[in-house]
């Protein structure tokens, strides 16, 4: 246990953890929304994220950018970012909807047991990730250096880069926007109603099918944004990059309180930071174990999570 190392790099580990946690939080939103409404762990969500990463990369590739290209000017960067985000959002959203339509809807129609949903989700996740794997020959794909990391703020040995600020800021803004959407719009009310009691909501005139599709779509959008942030931060993607992140995101959702949007944000940030501390203390190879131990501990001692499960209640 390397306490001095942890102490020495405390600042950098925290910042890195927050940035990582922001990506996890965006990713976790998809899990938490779907679980809140359908009581279903959407295993395929990790693949929704992964195809978003590839969509952004291939779109940038279409414009001639690959990992060896020079960094374009600021205006071009903003343009490329928007295009990349748009591509990732569209592809992730469509994939999410496709999964819902092909895999879950037929099962809902015949009132299948929850085990069936989980198994189908696993099947869908497997099929999508393996197909991408075969077509990319399981190779990594590099990301064009759109954002040259530059340290913006220096606090002792805490160096905060522009990319990290972008990621954390974006996550906070999106979370705020989503919060407003769920709590203050009609569609949001519909989502909360279906989360509380699907059949009563249907009786009260809410179009259940449309709400469910909307929930998957929102989850997919968030995953698409997380995907772009991820590729900019990591610099590469691969057909299985969704898997580990997916487990961490689900852990974060449970940690914060599944179904609870603010919980997803809190859980994500907390998990990112704690994983980095574990890496600092024990070595990077143990950091996923940290996530699992936290998950098991929460499920045993406080299964409702830190902020409580509450998509169905008025306070999200």
């Amino acid at each position, binding site marked *: 246990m390397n306490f001095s190392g942890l102490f020495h790099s405390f600042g950098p580990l925290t910042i890195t953890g927050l940035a990582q946690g922001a990506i996890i939080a965006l990713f976790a939103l998809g899990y938490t929304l779907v679980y809140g409404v359908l009581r279903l762990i959407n295993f395929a969500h990790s693949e929704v994220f992964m195809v978003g990463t590839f969509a952004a990369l291939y779109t940038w590739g279409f414009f001639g950018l690959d990992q060896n290209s020079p960094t374009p000017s600021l205006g071009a960067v903003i343009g490329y970012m928007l295009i990349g985000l748009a591509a990732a959002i569209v592809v992730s959203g469509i994939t999410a909807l496709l999964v819902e339509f092909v895999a879950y809807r037929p099962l*809902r129609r*015949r009132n299948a047991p929850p*085990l069936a949903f989980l*198994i189908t989700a696993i*099947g869908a996740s*497997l099929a999508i990730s393996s197909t991408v794997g075969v077509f990319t020959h*399981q190779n990594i794909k590099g990301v064009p250096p759109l954002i040259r990391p530059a340290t913006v703020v220096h606090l002792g040995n805490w160096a905060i880069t522009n990319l990290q600020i972008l990621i954390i800021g974006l996550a906070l803004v999106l979370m705020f926007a989503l919060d407003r959407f769920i709590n203050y719009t009609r569609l949001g009310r519909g989502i909360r109603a279906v989360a509380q009691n699907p059949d009563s909501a249907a009786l009260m005139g809410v179009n259940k099918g449309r709400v469910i599709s909307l929930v998957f779509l929102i989850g997919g959008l968030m995953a698409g944004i997380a995907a772009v942030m991820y590729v900019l931060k990591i610099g590469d993607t691969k057909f299985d990059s969704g898997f580990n992140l997916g487990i961490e995101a689900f852990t974060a959702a449970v940690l914060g309180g599944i179904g609870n949007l603010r919980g997803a944000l809190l859980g994500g940030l907390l998990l990112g930071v704690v994983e980095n501390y574990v890496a600092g203390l024990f070595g990077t190879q143990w950091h996923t174990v940290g996530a699992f131990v936290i*998950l098991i501990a929460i499920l045993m001692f406080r299964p409702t999570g830190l902020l409580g499960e509450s998509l169905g209640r008025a306070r999200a």
Partner: protein
Amino acid sequence: MTEPTASGPREAEPLAEAAPAVPTQPRAGTTAVQSPPVVPAAVVRRATVRGWMARQPWPVRAGLILVFVVLAYLLPYAGDIPVIGPQIVTQGIDWPSALFDMSYYVLLALGLNVVVGFAGLLDLGYVGFFAVGAYTVALLTSPDSVFNTKFVWLAAVPVAIVVALLSGLILGWPTLRLRGDYLAIVTLGFAEIIRITADSTPNFLRGDRGFGGLPHPPGNKSDGTPIFGVRDATPYFWLGLSVIILVILAVRNLDRSRVGRSWLAIREDEEAAEIMGVRTIKFKLWAFAIGAAVGGFGGVMFAGEQGFMNSSTFQLQFSILILSGVVMGGSGNIAGAILGGALISYIPDRLRGISDPLTHTDLFQWRFVFFGIAIMLIMILRPQGIIPSRRRAMELKDRAKEAAPQ
């Protein structure tokens, strides 16, 4: 929730399988009021193979099963069958080795079937028990091991099975009160923790460096060379097959006993079972323990055959592969688990060595795509699996009838 009338009149339902449309289909939400008189299951005429088997007198049944078992032992010689033989045997990998792989996959599928199929507990981390069995053998027998005890394989077998059983209890205990989906994630977490520990403890479990010099099962042929050598996997297959038969007998007996009925009750509705006096905690732990012991046995066989093992074998995809085998074959019944386990091992091995025209990838790499799609299709079209458990088919039919209009 299934209707209160559990066994009796339901036995007559399978008639529906023979006729395309059932004339007296109850409307959604109403229970089937007209119930035919209780008819003993064995006498009901069913247009299925299982029905036909059930109707034969027991000497005939025993004889047929015996023929089947003998044929199974003769499988290593399948390549000698004229015409279809060469199409059956695998090209890219030695046929007896492929058979041995099938045998331990089937063993694992049987074990997972106990947990998932009988007791209804979704375990996504089954490879963990396989790893525990294999690593226990390695730690006890390998000259690389930190314990340096250098047992023979046979001596390590019971220890490994007991350790695996204990690990099943250790996994089961904290997860007792968890909901189905949380249980899945926690079991996944346990398996990943085992894998990462295997990867990251260079002195204890030795990660990628692994354990070499693992001894093989004992026994010498008449000329003094060992029966279980390195080059011929046929004796290993026969050993595996024998173990499978033992496990089948044991599990079948459990299934038909009070334990099996308790599992059934837990699977259908845990809270109702608890209220009716079924000790759910005890039987869930039993399920985990037995599943883990069988998984550990699989690990023991694997270690005995390989001679060398390291942490790269125990990936999560392996758990998911076994799960898909059980689901595809038909969870909740033994024949289904056997078929599923055999298929998930046989099909990828058979396709090994052949490239697809599109991406020029060995077809072996497509196996997860294939199985992923297969799982989805099966869950949508035929959720009870290829060889359905009669009960499972009926459960699912009931649930479908209760579905609210979407």
